[in-house]
């Protein structure tokens, strides 16, 4: 065997390295280095031509200096010169220098590439390998351009040495990764795949990495590798421990190659060919069997190599997820490892079991290990192992064991490492919500969470508990009682104060009967925490106080006193001051009724995916999380649940709008109402209540019933009128039937929100509307096209007359209670000259206005599509195109519809697919749409699927008129 003495061959280098090592200080080292650099520079610049040896020695010294962390700005040329030496040692140093210190100096790159080209053509395997290693190490685009065509040829040529093939395969892999466009396999594909059959195991080991990478990118072209890989694997697995000689490692035949083969197979689904599949299953069984055999050596290397294969085999079994027998065996094997004395094995077993837990075949088998895993969570010394145990508990949790697992995770949290607390908190919160059977348990769990790890409870978590309490009236009393008790603790976490403030503000009345938690006691308790809290929490508490005034009139003087104090009403924080001022004013001037309406209990939140889950997903995502994304996540959570802070704000905004309903502030008002709209329709109704008697228009009942456009006919007019007689009487009282063209007019507005609804010689009605969730607001503009006045148009809020050429505006607030098919009617009566004009139109409010777009990937779309497979959930129409088939126009219309137009979802690019959720107060209805144009026949096929049959039907009717 070779033995190498210190720095043999280059004495000068060894001396220099010794000198550096003997330097007592950093300064001494720098001094020595500078001396050497000066020396080398002078040698390189000197008149005397340096011989190869010296050049090699100096370049090597420069490299050493660079590796010590010093900049090197010369010597590149000398290194390049070394490349063309015909001595191996000189060439090697040259290539090493280039590989370590490469920079994209284009001049040098040309020279380097030239040297590489010569070496590749040299037919000297040593030189060829050096050149290939250099390309593999540098992997620049320039090199890919120069050599991507040549290397496949070297790789598959019959006369290429094995070691060169190994290097060529991996060199090609590197180039493919950096410049995939330049590496074209084409004609080489089959010969590369057949390298899996190569006699030389080293060639297979190297080539398989290349094949795996290419298979991931072009699975179809490389799929023949599956059967080759299976037979290769089978030969290795069934070989005796000594058969493979050089490739046996501690009695394990070819462990790395086996792992790579198993990994390659994970690029593909299970083999379709029965024989291949049978052979593979046999291999996997053999691997599992071997794990049970007594070890052939006590060395850890033996068991590690064996288990490396075992874990890779288990990965493949999980990847296939189709062999229940193998999955359960894998699970049992991992179960044994859970108690192994090797920490590595316990860690890997926990990690691997986590994926097994998600398979339906092995979920139950994984669950049997719960006690061991809980024990691991409590006793493992390595935090990363405990982390895996926590992951596994989370993965194996279901309704049957949720209480136990959540309890264990909670108790672990008390001592958990700081690094994993936040994630643990999220997991506990998710499990508690997901598997809550009774919600008092859920509330207890979350409050415990805040008590134990308050600092790690993110906003999403406490937003969520409030959302759930608001939505479930069976738990509200319990929640109020529990937070009240939790707040008794002398030091409680600010998050607890937030939850407490919010819940007592909403539901404090439910426990006020008990003298121990009387209104004043509740208030004093909350207020005792006030001064220790941050501004957002204080703002929330102020909103809770004003809610108290509504809930408990007897607390009014006390609370007003607090609001009036200088520390509130003159608080330097604008938000707090504004709240104090507004709430004080509101409580003093508003009547009990108004107060009760403004401070009404929060309506239920729309159900949607838990924001915590989204947060956990993000946390678990690969790579460090960009801050902006996190922020976004928070904002999202905030929007979804709307913290108390925002809410108070919006309330006051709404109230101030109410007093000044000029068109411009109205528009602004709408926007702020829309922002809170996501939290619930309360502001909507609040606004309306203040505005007028009309209230939110119940769409199903039709606008005309509400009577806010009711014509008031003055008696004088009517007595003069000829129409007074007989049927005229009832005519003037009743609305006219809808105009024949009203349906057509309605259809104009399905895909747009603004425009002219109606026009005749006298009157033009324009519409502007905005929708958010299940709320909408519509502005109707009545334009007088004549030059005379319309008299007695209506009562308030519109002026009772419209000047010639002028316009009046009417605002309608809309709330969608449930889905509907008939548009509300709008009846307009006015007098022109002596004649009563009576027009009834359909108000252009259609179900699609309450669409919320939903973005989803192709897979999700079709999965949901398939789920909505009941015959009544689908509505379909085939109809002729009536407006041409301009793609852009179609897109505009589909977007105008309000749902999300999904790109790259339908396999046929001609087709359009959309997804959205119809928001009504009663429920949310998910809708999927598919529009398939047939340009040749000028026909469309439109298919709607939604969870509610009436919605599918109505949308289909509406849309069929649009294209």
């Amino acid at each position, binding site marked *: 065997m070779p033995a190498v003495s210190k720095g043999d061959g280059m004495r000068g280098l060894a001396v220099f390295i010794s000198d550096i090592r003997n330097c007592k200080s950093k300064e001494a080292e720098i001094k020595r280095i500078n001396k050497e650099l000066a020396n080398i520079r002078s040698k390189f610049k000197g008149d005397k031509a340096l011989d190869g040896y010296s050049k090699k020695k100096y370049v090597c010294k420069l490299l050493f200096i660079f590796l010590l962390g010093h900049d090197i700005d010369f010597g590149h040329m000398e290194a390049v010169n070394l490349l063309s030496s015909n001595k191996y040692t000189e060439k090697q140093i040259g290539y090493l220098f280039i590989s370590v210190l490469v920079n994209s100096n284009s001049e040098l790159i040309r020279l380097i590439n030239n040297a590489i080209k010569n070496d590749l053509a040299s037919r000297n395997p040593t030189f060829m390998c050096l050149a290939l290693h250099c390309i593999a190490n540098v992997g620049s685009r320039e090199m890919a351009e120069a050599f991507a065509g040549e290397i496949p040829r070297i790789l598959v040529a019959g006369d290429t040495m094995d070691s060169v093939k190994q290097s060529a395969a991996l060199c090609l892999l*590197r180039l493919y990764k950096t410049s995939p466009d330049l590496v074209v396999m084409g004609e080489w594909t089959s010969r590369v795949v057949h390298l899996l059959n190569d006699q030389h*195991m*080293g060639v297979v*080991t190297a080539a398989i990495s290349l094949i795996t990478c290419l298979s991931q990118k072009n699975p179809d072209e490389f799929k023949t590798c599956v059967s080759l890989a299976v037979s290769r694997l089978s030969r290795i697995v069934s070989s005796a421990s000594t058969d493979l000689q050089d490739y046996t490692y501690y009695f394990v035949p070819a462990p*790395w190659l086996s792992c790579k083969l198993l990994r390659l197979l994970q690029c593909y689904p299970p083999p379709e060919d029965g024989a291949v599949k049978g052979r593979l299953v046999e291999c996997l069984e053999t691997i599992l069997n071997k794990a049970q055999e007594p070890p052939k050596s006590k060395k850890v290397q033996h068991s590690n190599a064996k288990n490396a294969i075992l874990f890779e085999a288990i990965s493949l079994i999980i990847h296939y997820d189709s062999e229940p027998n193998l999955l359960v065996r894998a699970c049992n094997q991992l179960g044994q490892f859970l108690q192994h004395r090797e920490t590595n094995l316990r860690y890997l077993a926990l990690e691997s079991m986590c994926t097994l837990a998600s398979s339906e075949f092995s979920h139950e088998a994984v669950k049997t290990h719960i006690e061991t895993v809980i024990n691991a969570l409590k006793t493992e010394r390595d935090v990363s192992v405990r982390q895996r145990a926590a992951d596994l508990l989370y993965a194996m949790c279901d309704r049957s064991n949720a209480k136990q697992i959540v309890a264990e995770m909670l108790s672990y949290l008390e001592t958990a490492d700081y690094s994993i607390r936040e994630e643990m908190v999220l997991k506990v919160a998710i499990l508690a919500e997901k598997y809550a059977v009774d919600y008092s348990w859920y509330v207890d769990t979350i409050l415990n969470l805040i008590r134990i790890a308050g600092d790690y409870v993110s906003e999403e978590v406490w937003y969520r508990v409030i959302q759930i309490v608001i939505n479930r009236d069976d738990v509200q009393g319990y929640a109020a009682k529990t937070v009240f008790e939790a707040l008794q603790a002398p030091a409680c976490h600010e998050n607890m104060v937030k939850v407490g403030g919010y819940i007592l503000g909403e539901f404090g009345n439910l426990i006020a009967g008990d003298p121990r938690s009387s209104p004043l006691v509740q208030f004093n308790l909350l207020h005792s925490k006030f001064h220790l809290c941050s501004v957002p929490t204080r703002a929330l508490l102020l909103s809770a106080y004003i809610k108290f005034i509504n809930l408990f009139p007897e607390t009014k003087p006390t609370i007003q006193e607090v609001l009036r104090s200088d520390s509130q009403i003159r608080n330097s924080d604008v938000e707090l001051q504004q709240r104090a001022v507004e709430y004080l004013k509101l409580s003093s001037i508003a009547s009990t009724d108004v107060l009760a309406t403004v401070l009404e209990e929060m309506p239920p939140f729309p159900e949607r995916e838990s924001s915590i889950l989204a947060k956990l997903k993000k946390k678990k995502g690969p790579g460090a999380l960009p801050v902006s994304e996190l922020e976004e996540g928070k904002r999202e959570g905030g929007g979804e649940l709307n913290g108390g802070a925002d809410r108070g704000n919006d309330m006051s905004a709404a109230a101030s709008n109410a007093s000044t309903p000029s068109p411009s502030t109205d528009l602004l008002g709408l926007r702020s109402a829309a922002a809170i709209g996501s939290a619930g329709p309360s502001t909507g109704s609040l606004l309306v209540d203040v505005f007028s008697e009309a209230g939110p228009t119940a769409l199903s009942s039709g606008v005309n019933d509400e009577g806010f456009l009711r014509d008031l006919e003055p008696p004088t007019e009517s007595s003069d009128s000829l129409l007074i007689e007989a049927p005229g009487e009832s005519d003037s009282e009743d609305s006219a039937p809808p105009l024949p063209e009203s349906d057509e007019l309605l259809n104009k507005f399905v895909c747009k929100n603004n425009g002219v609804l109606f026009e005749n010689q006298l009157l033009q009605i324009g519409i502007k509307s905005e929708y958010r969730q299940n709320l909408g607001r519509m502005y109707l503009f009545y334009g007088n096209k004549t030059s005379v006045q319309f008299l007695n148009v209506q009562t308030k809020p519109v002026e009772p007359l419209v000047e010639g050429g002028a316009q009046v505006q009417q605002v309608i607030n809309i709330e969608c209670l449930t889905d509907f098919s008939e548009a509300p009617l709008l009846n307009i009566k006015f007098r022109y000259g002596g004649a009563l004009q009576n027009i009834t139109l359909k108000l252009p409010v259609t179900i699609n206005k309450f669409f919320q777009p939903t973005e989803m990937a192709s897979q999700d779309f079709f999965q949901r599509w398939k789920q909505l497979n009941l015959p009544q959930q689908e509505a379909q129409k085939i109809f002729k195109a009536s407006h041409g088939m301009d793609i852009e126009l179609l897109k505009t219309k589909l977007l105008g519809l309000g749902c999300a137009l999904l790109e790259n979802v339908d396999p046929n690019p001609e087709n359009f697919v959309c997804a959205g959720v119809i928001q009504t107060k009663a429920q949310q209805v998910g809708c999927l749409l598919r529009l398939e144009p047939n340009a040749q026949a000028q026909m469309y096929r439109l298919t709607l699927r939604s969870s509610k049959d009436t919605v599918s039907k109505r949308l289909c009717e509406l849309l069929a008129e649009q294209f």
Partner: protein
Amino acid sequence: MIRFVLIQNRAGKTRLAKWYMQFDDDEKQKLIEEVHAVVTVRDAKHTNFVEFRSFKIIYRRYAGLYFCICVDVADNNLAYLEAIHNFVEVLNEYFHNVCELDLVFNFYKVYTVVDEMFLAGEIRETSQTKVLKQLLLLQSLD
């Protein structure tokens, strides 16, 4: 795929750094320091694996030297752990009872050993016999 290979001593001095993906020099220095900080605090009861940024480090300590391989999260831990040992055994044969100083004085040869066994972030050759035979051949060349 291997992202980088590092050999460091307990004091944090780098004895080998081999990079398989592009980093600029500052980033390399930062990685070296981070790896040292992460690995040296662990004891024998800990696993040989550490999560590291969006990758993981598989490492093993030999006397005063830490051999660290940074790989993708989905890669096979034990296979790389034994790849380290295989590499160390080759160094041990090649340098006849390798010690830290051998790596210092023969740093340019260590790169050759690495390139024989790992290339482009993948395992190139695993047979110690084959690698040592090749190294012997190269040793005999001028």
